[in-house]
């Protein structure tokens, strides 16, 4: 099985360890993983900002780079959903591209969903010591139904104690460009998320989208919390945390 790994622009720039963790998890499960070196961004920021031509150009570029693989795997619910769901709506007047987008959408998966639903992994390589609470990122949760998958996988990691927080499904306030257009509102929403995290008593918070994690970590630190770890679920599963 040949899997194309779309690492996402944020992981490429900010936290390559998430990309390597995803790579390890997929290879460990027996996949032949290819990381096309021309990949950049799926185009979600352009699409959500109202730049349709920019978003379409990046969608075509991504489709062309990844349509040759058996599966496309993304360590992010929102980027995964952008390829899986939003690409389909972009090409109403271009049937050829619509067909290519449709074909690829069906083979595109968020990482934890892929590990559970497609690969049906029995074991993961990681081990971890400590309590973890899980933040459900909005798009993964509400559009792709990512809820049980990361928890099922975390349950396979020796030493992880999952402590659910109240409000785990509430938005952290990131919202892509929202976080810099309305920074004050975004940070105030993040504060509420951090309060939920603190109330859970967990020593670490994990999630599946780096955007949310940067937002949460940035707010925790500004609130004076120097100890709560903020981790991508792939890092824990791969034993890279």
């Amino acid at each position, binding site marked *: 099985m040949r899997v194309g790994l779309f690492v996402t622009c944020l992981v*490429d720039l900010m936290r390559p360890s998430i990309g390597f963790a995803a790579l390890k998890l997929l290879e460990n499960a027996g996949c032949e993983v290819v*990381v096309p070196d021309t990949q950049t961004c799926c185009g979600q920021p352009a699409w*959500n900002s109202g*730049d349709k031509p920019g978003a379409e150009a990046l969608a075509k570029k991504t489709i062309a780079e990844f349509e040759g693989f058996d599966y496309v795997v993304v360590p992010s619910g929102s980027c995964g959903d952008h390829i899986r769901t939003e690409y389909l709506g972009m090409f109403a007047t271009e049937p050829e591209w619509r067909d290519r987008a449709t074909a690829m959408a069906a083979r595109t998966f968020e990482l934890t969903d892929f590990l559970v639903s497609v690969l049906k992994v029995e074991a993961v390589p990681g081990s971890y010591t400590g309590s973890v609470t899980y933040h459900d990122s909005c798009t993964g949760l*509400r*559009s792709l139904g990512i809820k049980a998958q990361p928890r099922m996988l975390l349950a396979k990691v020796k030493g992880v104690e999952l402590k659910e927080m109240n409000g785990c499904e509430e938005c952290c306030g990131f919202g892509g460009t929202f976080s810099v257009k309305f920074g*004050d509102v*975004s940070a105030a929403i993040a504060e509420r998320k951090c309060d939920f995290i603190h109330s859970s008593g967990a020593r670490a918070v994990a999630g599946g989208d780096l955007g949310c994690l940067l937002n949460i970590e940035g707010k925790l630190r500004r609130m004076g919390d120097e100890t709560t770890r903020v981790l991508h679920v792939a890092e824990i599963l791969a034993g890279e945390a």
Partner: protein
Amino acid sequence: MEIKSMRFKANASASLANVVLQGNLKNAKGKFVTKRAEALKDLDDFEGTRDAAKAIRNKVIDNLDLWLERFERKALDTGAHVLWAKDGAEVCRLVTEIARKHGVKKVTKSKSMLSEEAGLNQALEAAGIQPVETDLGEYILQVDNNEPPSHIIAPAVHKSLDDVADLFHKVHGTPRKTEIPALTREAREVLRGHFLTAEMGLSGGNFLVAETGSVALVTNEGNGRMVTTLPKVHVVITGIEKVIPTLEDLSTLMRLLPRSATGQSISNYFSILTGVKKPEEHDGPEHLYFVLVDSGRADVIGGEFHEMLRCIRCGACMNHCPVYQTIGGHAYGWVYPGPMGSVLTPLYAGIENSIDLPHAATLCNQCGIVCPVGIPLPELLRKLREKQTDAGLRPLTERIGLRLWAWVAQQPKLYALGARFGVRYLKWLAGKSDRISLLPMAPEWTRGRDFPAPQGKTFREMYAARRKAA
């Protein structure tokens, strides 16, 4: 109503800095959400009921002219008058004319968001007619210097018990009371006199039933019945999209509206009002007028925002919105706040007058999930952003920035170089620290939180190095 949505950002910051408001918002936040979730449990099939409700609303807005004509015909048969208003100014003119014709000096009002859209109270006052708001929330706002509502079903939700205690003590000149029943009683005592002396009652309408020519009213305080039955003249003001075909359809929608709005399986009062008082009847108005208002709605029909017309004004979207919960309704700057307001305000009050609103959302889709008529609010907000960009309404720096970024992202080599440079710059900003406390290119981010430092090299660099070594 005057639109102040261009000040959204400043308004939002002011809301965040308002300690009293923040406390009130925190208190209100959980209640709507928890009660709705509880109330939905006794619906056998929420999804199925929602699909049915969506189908009813679609059926109407797909052929709105037809259903409006049917409604008009039936309403005329019951002895009502049906008037059509193009915009808010025409609403004010028509209602003032009706009041003059019947020698009206005082109008009691049940809640109507459309009268807020039209600025009707100000117009009535200017014509020497006294409007009296009788919904408790609306009454509180009216006596507080005509403060605008901050929520479509709980207009004074931004106020605390203490705020109202102070206000009533001041405007009623009575000893300060701190118990809710005592405050409510005080308002009732003031309003009772108005109910008995007003010559005209004015209400909104939750639904217009085409089959019978009736208006359906959902209320919790009983004031709606006073307003619509005691005075000799009753005026109903609604948007033209509020019509539904049958009473059977009304029962379907009513399974969702109170549950979605206040978390009640049924509201305390639910009235279906049909026609004028008949000779053998004791109650009801002698004259009944429907003022059916366009105010931008007809322009939405058949376009890319068509689905918004399904809205039944329950308020669930704002109750579940992280942005609304954080800043409250006033920041949105017009009649309708929250996600539905961020779609409606640009459509009804001008896209150029509300540049920030479609962007004032994280697109978390909590609103779309709870909407009882399945309006894809995040998608509509995104389309509005697209319209703004196409019309050149976004700031030039943003447009150039987005374009440049999208262009670079299409040139892998250039992009890789840019990322390589960018990550080193960020690492340099962080220095030895694991975080950046001031991002010069995005100071909005770091005003309220830190920005975690990057690991130091891009994934693609490290991956290439690893492949080389292997």
